[in-house]
């Protein structure tokens, strides 16, 4: 039996743990942003939209700190093996989470453009309303999978993401049949963009899942082949 040595490189491992904690806390920030972004669309809440836009500064600030911290860790500590994989996974995850924040800003920026009394089509809003909790759930699942180094939970995000993809396609189909009224068409176009942004957030959660699987298995692979056509449904 091998002699167990005491834990070493304490500074390095403490720093890596701290940076992972920073990244995990960013998930919580963007979950809140997604909730508020969807809520401000549903309620045409311009004030809430402004808050979503402002809150992105916090995500961006943390993104920069984590990026610099990981850069320093690579330069100073020369991580290897699982530690190296985790550092690179955190670098990529950091970018994905920051992009989720940006997409929430994109959603919030569309709210004032819709006008105070937009020509709302309830069926479209209902689809957006369904996408909100689904998006939140995927972000939380991506976080949990990374936190627990759970490759199976990470890969399960692909199945989860099909729900968002389908809802997004549904929004697109309904928007096509919105009619000829210019205001309604413009509003519907905004809704298709919002659907698209939420669907993109879903894609980011899958990408984060791929990073988690990389940390666990040591092999990087894409869960799905983006160029393969799964069905013949119209692509938005």
């Amino acid at each position, binding site marked *: 039996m091998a002699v167990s040595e005491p834990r070493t*490189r*304490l*500074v390095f491992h403490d720093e890596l743990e701290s940076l992972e904690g920073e990244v995990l806390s960013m998930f919580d920030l963007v979950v809140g942003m997604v909730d508020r972004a969807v809520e401000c669309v549903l309620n045409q809440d311009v004030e809430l939209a402004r808050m979503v836009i402002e809150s992105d500064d916090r995500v961006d600030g943390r993104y920069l700190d984590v990026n610099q911290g990981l850069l*320093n860790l690579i*330069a*100073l*500590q*020369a991580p290897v093996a699982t530690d190296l994989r985790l550092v690179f996974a955190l670098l990529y995850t950091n970018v994905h989470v920051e992009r989720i924040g940006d997409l929430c800003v994109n959603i919030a920026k569309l709210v004032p453009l819709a006008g105070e009394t937009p020509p709302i089509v309830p069926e479209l809003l209902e689809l957006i309303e369904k996408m909100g909790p689904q998006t939140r759930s995927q972000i939380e699942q991506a976080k949990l999978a990374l936190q627990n180094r759970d490759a199976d939970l990470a890969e399960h995000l692909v199945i989860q993401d099909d729900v968002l993809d389908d809802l997004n396609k549904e929004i697109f189909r309904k928007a096509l049949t919105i009619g000829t009224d210019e205001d309604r068409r413009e509003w519907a176009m905004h809704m298709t963009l919002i659907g698209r942004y939420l669907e993109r957030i879903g894609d980011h959660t899958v990408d984060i899942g791929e990073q988690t699987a990389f940390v666990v298995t040591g092999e990087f692979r894409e869960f799905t082949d983006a160029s393969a056509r799964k069905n013949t449904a119209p692509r938005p």
Partner: protein
Amino acid sequence: MAWKVKEEPAPGGAAPDVTPQGEHAPTGAQNIFELQAVSVRYSGNLAVKEVGFGVPTNRITALIGASGCGKSTLLRCLNRMNDLIPGARVEGTITYKGQDLYSPRVDPVQVRKRIGMVFQKPNPFPKSIFDNVAFGPRVLGMKEDINLLVENALRRASLWDEVKDRLKDSALGMSGGQQQRLCIARAIATEPDVILMDEPCSALDPISTARIEDLMNELKDRYTIVIVTHNMQQAARVSDKTAYFSVEVGDNDRRYGRLIEYDDTERIFTNPSDQRTEDYVTGKVG
């Protein structure tokens, strides 16, 4: 008190105030050493030319550079070890806690009590583990309880749990990594402010090296550490500040060392200011 001064009066007037500056003040942001235009010559030959920088208190400062750049020479200036080398001469000014380290009134023995040193190769005395640590305090006539003093030093050196049941055993029976930690315990037994380390891990395996590096990080809460290392990655891992020295060639084809860049370690290893530093840390030049 930083160190005792010799009894003879200062040449040319009244004895200056020898109370060290800031000894009881918060020391986090202060420099314990200030070097100004420090040059070192061996038998008249220049070894280090006009080095100037400050060593911050309770931080780890690394001196890096190729062989012959004078980093070990400079390290030895910080506790007047060069005094022991015939023909060595130190020019410029080195202050320790605001006092001129090379003042004729300063007792080098007291300097080395306050500024301890750990060498490349572990060099325990052929005595028991206990006697190795107790050696310095006994020689210096320290009045504290020697058992407590030895235990404290061994604890701070992360060695106590491994040796507490065999303190009377010979230190020469310890592993290399343990011997080096014993040397660190021996250095801190005299309650220094500064520990100078001259390539302290170059004779150790990776695990022992990692333990010494972890220990350095623990020790910096109480001590200022200056380390010379050939291992650039070690400097990156452990230090807060890094000084890079290059080897220059003089008119007479003699080589001497010169400070090129001194900055936060993160800066040196991610975005150095000087191209020569960049070339060294990226391995483009030896």
